[in-house]
């Protein structure tokens, strides 16, 4: 079962720069490892991460096999209005997970 750990301040002042931290459970199989029998273990990674703030994209990332398992991504944004952050992780083999977190901006 995939689980995400999101950290967004519940409250912020208008114009305040806030940090958003995300952790997503995923093996991030590189596609460069082999079994003992010599077969290649196929790649299975998260390839893209997007954060939207009340529908507007504020951060996006392309991920490659060199991103460690259980990807941790943190970034900043300006708190402009109350509402919510939507997070989406897309990857190989139809991997698609989303999460959201609310924020009150005064």
């Amino acid at each position, binding site marked *: 079962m995939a*689980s995400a*750990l999101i950290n967004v301040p519940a409250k912020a002042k208008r114009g305040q720069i806030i940090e958003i931290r995300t952790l997503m*459970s995923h093996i991030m199989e590189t596609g460069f490892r082999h079994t003992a029998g010599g077969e290649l273990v196929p790649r299975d990674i998260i390839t893209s991460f997007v954060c939207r703030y009340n529908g507007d994209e504020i951060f996006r990332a392309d991920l490659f096999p060199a991103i460690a*398992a*259980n990807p*941790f991504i943190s970034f900043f944004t300006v708190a402009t209005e109350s509402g919510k952050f939507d997070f989406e992780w897309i990857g190989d083999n139809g991997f698609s997970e989303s999460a959201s977190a609310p924020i009150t901006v005064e």
Partner: protein
Amino acid sequence: MRASPAISVAVLLVMAAPLRAAEIPQEQRRSGFSFMASETQAMQHDDTTNPGMLWVLDGEKLWNGKAGAASKACADCHNDARVSMKGVAARYPAFDKRLGRPVDLEQRINLCRAEHQQATPLAYESHDLLALTAFVAQQSRGVEISAGSDRELEPFVAKGHELFMQRQGQLNLACANCHDDNFDKHLAGSAITQAHPTGYPEYRLEWQSLGSLQRRLRSCIFGIRAQPYDYGAPEMVELELYLMSRARGMPMETPAVRP
């Protein structure tokens, strides 16, 4: 960089050294946490960056979810884990009266599942067992380890100590050779610690996953070219018990992060 020359040098040093009977003096005992780089310590210290917390979150869901033919959740009997499980992991492995021997936390969870939930046991190192164990053990974070203090456990602690001291495998090494006699030196780029299992189940960077103390022990024993005990074997639990009693007084750190 190659592992072999470093290990052979370590072996030469250690095979020559007589096996000291003394454990580490109390005032010199340190958690594996103190052997790590500050970046790895920071990873453990912050619940928003600690990957082990992903399993703790899943464990919380499992705790509250109905399971087995009895369709009961852990929460149905144990209520809020924050209250009922506080301090529990710090005194495990614990003596089970019916079995007449110690059981570790994973075994206790599976015994409960069988007896009270009529559910099948969870496999060792399965995601669900790790998640539940991590969730339960995390409730003891900060609590001082008190495992092994019961009188009934004494013979098992002694057995575990014996296993810790015995030379084994192709390299004829005992756990004590590294973890009592050579801690704070390095083996092929990794710090040798004092082997205090303060934070299990832990997120090990080498595994890129959460794993149990038994997994770590099997990995170590394989590393010294000896035959590892099976998961759940009595020797495993005795070793776990000895190691936890060796760490008595140190606070639990679950979920720890280690290299």
